[in-house]
């Protein structure tokens, strides 16, 4: 029997496991192939939901489902944390002392925001990148009547548009509560425009002007003084704040570092087309865990899953496993609380703008529900 192990039960891991189990239904029934999903979380959380939690539009429970309920038959789920990936012996070692050998491995361990990368950040800043953070931010916003809110981003981070969505939604949240006039919103960004995608930056510029949102470019956080409530950039400027909201720098999963297979930040060196781990034939990497210079987003993992599943099925069927990922990314962008737009691009197709509309906003809200079908491999 040949075994495909998938490490990480988030977006990428769950999609790959479910799609493999469908494609290999017959081989699994004949016990020729086994698909094993290893995940440390018993529950699956839809991370884009954190934005809505922060603005009290929905409670956390809306975005959480039991992991087992998302898996199709044919996927064996091991709810454990992996301690080490040993690519020399093709095995995973678990925290509970067990281990699992594999013929093929898919690494889907994600990227993880860290408030420890900048002095004073943990004590001085809020965020909306974990469930706990978005709940704490919701409560802080609800109890604030006036002041200066400074928003910042560190690199690398997943979902590069979330910070813009957050800023536009914040403006609208304050307006709807009749207190926007009492607030100053200052948006800072690491490079010389409002967003790395030029069409998105161009679209959002007049929006910021219309809404009275101030901005500063080339602002890379250097340190935060939580007592004086001041944030300083390494380019030499600083702001005092009443509320600081940061998207902190991300790292790869601890198991990647502990296994010695990551770069300095814990991301796995990956071939940008085949999605195989560099130097390996039987290990694939999906989603945020790769070191690829592309957007860390659920949609990236979605498109990468197509390539990885096709290659694994071909490997098992003795066919040339030569499917290539074309760099496709597709992102919805909330333009406030009732309008949205989207942007798509690939290695060869530059991003083009699309006018925001109410319809797209409803589609984004609908996607928050459709996600649960998509992760089951049904879309």
């Amino acid at each position, binding site marked *: 029997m040949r075994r495909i192990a998938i490490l990480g039960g988030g977006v990428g891991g769950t999609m790959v496991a479910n799609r493999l189990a469908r494609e290999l239904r017959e081989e699994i029934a004949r016990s020729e192939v086994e698909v094993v999903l290893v995940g440390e979380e018993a529950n699956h959380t839809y991370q884009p939901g954190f934005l809505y939690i922060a603005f009290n539009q929905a409670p956390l429970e809306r975005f959480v489902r039991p992991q087992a309920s998302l898996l199709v038959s044919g996927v064996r789920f091991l709810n454990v944390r992996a301690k080490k990936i040993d690519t020399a012996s093709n095995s995973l070692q678990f925290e509970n002392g067990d281990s699992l050998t594999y013929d093929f491995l898919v690494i889907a361990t994600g990227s993880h925001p860290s408030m420890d990368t900048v002095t004073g950040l943990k004590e001085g800043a809020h965020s909306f990148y974990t469930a706990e953070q978005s709940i704490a931010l919701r409560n802080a916003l609800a109890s604030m009547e006036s002041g200066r809110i400074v928003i910042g981003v560190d*690199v*690398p981070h997943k979902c*590069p548009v979330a910070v813009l969505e957050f800023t536009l939604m914040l403006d609208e949240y304050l307006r709807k509560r009749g207190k926007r006039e009492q607030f100053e919103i200052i948006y800072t960004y*690491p*490079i*010389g425009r409002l967003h*790395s*995608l*030029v069409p998105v930056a161009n679209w959002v510029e007049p929006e910021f002007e219309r809404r009275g949102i101030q901005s500063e470019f*080339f602002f*890379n956080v250097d340190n935060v003084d939580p007592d004086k409530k001041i944030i300083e950039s*390494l*380019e*030499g400027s600083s702001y005092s704040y009443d509320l600081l909201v940061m998207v902190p*720098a991300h790292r790869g999963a601890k198991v990647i570092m502990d296994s010695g297979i990551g770069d*300095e*930040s814990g991301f796995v060196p990956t071939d*940008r087309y085949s999605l195989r781990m560099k130097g390996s034939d039987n290990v694939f990497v999906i989603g945020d865990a790769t070191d*690829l*210079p*592309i*957007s860390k987003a659920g949609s990236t993992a979605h498109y990468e899953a197509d390539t990885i599943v096709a290659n694994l099925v071909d490997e098992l069927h003795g066919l040339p496993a030569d499917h290539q990922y074309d*760099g496709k*990314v597709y992102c919805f962008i909330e333009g406030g609380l009732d309008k949205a737009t989207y942007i798509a*691009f*690939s*290695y*060869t197709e*530059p*991003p083009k703008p699309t006018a925001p509309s109410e319809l797209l906003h409803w589609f984004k809200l609908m996607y928050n529900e459709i996600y649960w079908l998509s992760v089951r491999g049904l879309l």
Partner: protein
Amino acid sequence: MSQVAVDKTIDARGTYCPGPLMELIKTLKTAPLQSVIEVWSSDSGSSTDIPVWVKKAGHEFVYSIEEKGYWRIAVRKAR
């Protein structure tokens, strides 16, 4: 120019988000002092964007060389 030894190369060709400059900022953060990072970018904007940021951030711009369809831009980590 060709005498400069490059310590790490980032191939950010055909990538738009986070893009070549953000990749450079990320890489410089964990790179040792004085190391030279070379970014490959197919976006012509990078050859102006990157030097502007490098100056603001107090690093050292080493070179920008136009190849067929892309630029090789090198920066030395100075702080």
